């Protein structure tokens, strides 16, 4: 059951726009990563660590499941 590969998606892009059109650079600086990492996360090319996922959720003042979710 758990051997199945899961696809973790996110709503970072949508949340950025809902958050006064926050730029990728601003979010990157807030969570302490490079802008390229935010770009990779938004394009689903990179899944962040739990630590970074929580930091991103906190930056938007949301629960982690509102930002990162599994596409069934």
């Amino acid at each position, binding site marked *: 059951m758990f051997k199945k590969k899961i696809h973790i998606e996110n709503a970072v892009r949508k949340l950025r726009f809902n958050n006064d059109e926050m730029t990728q650079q601003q979010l*990157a600086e807030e969570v*302490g*990563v*490079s802008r*390229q*990492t935010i770009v*990779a996360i938004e394009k689903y090319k*990179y899944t*962040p*660590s739990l*630590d*970074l996922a929580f930091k991103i959720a906190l930056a938007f003042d949301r629960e982690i499941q509102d930002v990162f979710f599994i596409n069934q």
Partner: protein
Amino acid sequence: MNIKIRNTLAEITGALIAMTWMWLNLIDALTMSIQSVSKVLAQGIGISIILIIVLHIVFNIFSSIITGQYEENIEDERDKIYELYALQMSSAIFGISIVATFVLLGWFNLNITTGLIAITFSGFIASIFSLLLKIYLYR
């Protein structure tokens, strides 16, 4: 082109130039003494290190002039993971190359100078492959 790809390209260019320099100086390796071959290899490694530092600076200066803005190189968890993938790949290639070198040295009864050159070049080739993997991951 982002700063990660630019720095990786600088490292590939430095390694390729150093390899070419060593190749040109080792054309007559069969007639050279082991001391002079070792000297060329050590100089090649030194040249590659200096070239990589210089090319990093040159590439970043050119990029700043062209784009008109300074891009800071921030290391984060993604860089560490990609660095680990690259290290795994280079270790695998280098390990296989060393074993292959020893097997071929014994098989074809080659001299120690050939082995020395093969090991040094395999190190450079492993490094180039790992850098290419990093470019693929950062693309």
